[in-house]
């Protein structure tokens, strides 16, 4: 599934965008399936806005976002839900776990919906990311780092063609970043998927095929 952007302008950032040359805003862009795209975005340039627009959470923009044949602005809620279950996965910057559920329940709620990874795989991934002892801890009691690792696993549970990541490692130390990045690379490869990672600074978490400035 190709991702195509054309003339994208988020309404709240319109004036700011007009003041500089962006590699994404106002441009036409075609990203092929399997691409590894890094979007470097200094603070305030709309990194999270972009990820939310691509994931269909925001509609306050001009221009067009197209996932395959689906024009995002006119996609109905059910189709959007299907895209989010089968084609596009996301790691939010603010993790967005259910605080009232345990770490494992946060995983389970996605497992049943997505029919991607198995419970055994999910359990194994938790162990790889050092969350074995945190399975029964409530989301609200997990540290940011632990929440981020649960959010990463949750995003990898479903089948996807594109993985969107918004500062996915912002709360992790180097050792955990390496473990998480290795897991993500492995699952992205298994899914034969592409990825878009937005972050503040240049990095080499993954071998990017394209780097864009926001």
């Amino acid at each position, binding site marked *: 599934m190709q991702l195509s952007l054309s003339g994208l302008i988020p309404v709240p950032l319109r004036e700011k965008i007009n003041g500089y040359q962006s590699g994404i805003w106002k441009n036409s862009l075609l990203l092929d399936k399997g691409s590894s795209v890094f979007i470097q975005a200094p603070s305030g340039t709309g990194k999270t806005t972009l990820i939310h627009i691509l994931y269909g*959470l925001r509609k306050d923009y001009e221009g067009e976002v197209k996932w395959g044949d689906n024009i995002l602005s006119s996609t109905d809620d059910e189709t959007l839900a299907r895209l989010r279950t089968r084609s596009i996965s996301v790691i939010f910057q603010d993790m967005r776990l*259910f605080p009232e559920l345990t770490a494992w329940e946060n995983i389970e709620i996605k497992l*049943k919906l997505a029919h991607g990874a198995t419970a055994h795989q999910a359990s194994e991934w938790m162990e790889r990311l050092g969350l074995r002892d945190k399975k029964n801890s409530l989301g609200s009691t997990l540290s940011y780092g632990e929440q981020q690792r649960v959010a990463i696993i949750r995003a990898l549970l479903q089948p996807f063609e594109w993985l969107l990541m918004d500062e996915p490692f912002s709360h992790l130390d180097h050792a955990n970043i390496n473990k998480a990045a290795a897991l993500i690379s492995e699952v992205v490869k298994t899914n034969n998927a592409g990825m878009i990672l937005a972050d503040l600074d240049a990095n080499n978490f993954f071998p990017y095929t394209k780097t864009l400035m926001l």
Partner: protein
Amino acid sequence: MSDAVQKNILKKLLMRTQNRSRLWAALAALCIGTTLLLLSVMIWWNFRELLYGKNQNDTLGSTFLIIGKRVTEQNMGMAGATVFTPQDIENVKHAPQVEDLGIISSNHFPVYAMMGGKLAFATDLALESVPDKFIDKMPAEWKWTPGSKDLPIIISSQFLDIYNYVFAPSQGLPQLSEGSVKSIVLNFKAGRDEQSETFLAHVVGFSDRIGSVLAPQAFIDYGNKKWGKPGLTDAPSQVILKTKDPSDAGFAAYLKQHDYNTNPENLRWSKIRAIVSVVTSATGVLALLLMGIGALVFVLFIELTIARAQNAMTLLLQIGYGPRFLGRFMIRRFLPLVLGSVVLSMMVTVICQVVVASLVVSQGLALPVLPGWPVWLALVISTGILALLVSGSVNGAIKKQ
């Protein structure tokens, strides 16, 4: 992972902030409203059944009336002055509220009834006949063909009452049940002199509607033809009417204007029907109001539950749960509560009907043991409306997320 685990987690996320007391209050209002609605339909239908149903119950203000021309100082003794002419009959057929008219034929030949034994008696008798559709409780044996010696007759229930409560005690005779009267055989001698015939008459039924002795129409026609006095008019002196509402002012005015008389008790009783009708309508309106309030509180409860679970709902939608899936999940949680309250209402209604049906038997009335179809229809319609309200409010609230 099983569906049960998913449901439990969703329940934990979406249903945990329920205010139980508000839920029970809403359900109680809904249940009371639905019960009242079903009961008011039940009362209305029962009343209809009593008046117009197959088991027509004349005890409760008949819609069947026998009318005749009033005998006055002026017309008494004048031959044919109190009989109905074909024009009269046509006129009455088109009177207000009249649905059907039956001619009451009487015998124009002598009938002599005799019985031996302890209750021995012999008397001249007058017989009448009405079209079968005007007989209130049609006995299976109600048939006579020329040549048959067995003659079924129906007597007025009042005759039996007079015998049991007035005549028998005064003469020291045994009182008789309906069953025992049916087992008595009377010898009827009909006709004149050597042309007369004898019949074995059996009482096959009792009528609340007709105040005389009824014989099958075929027998009266046969007797009148064979033994009838030449020159005697065949015009009826009484007709029986099936009316929609004998308490109608237009109908009463019509009777007065044409100087027809009838049993005024029937007209008086029928007033009760108007009262019941008003009470039923008022109960129905109250029931609809209560149901409306119950449904409104329940819908508000649903919206409040979803609003309280707003964060979880939003996040579920963000991680890929479809609005339709979540809507179905919520509807499956709320709908059984509504259905439960409706089923409870129906159970109360069925119990009431069973109790009412058994109670009215002692009043000489008959009602079906189960509620009539309008009650079931009201149940289906109210359930449908409630289901639509629940699904509409759930889907609407989810859409707002």
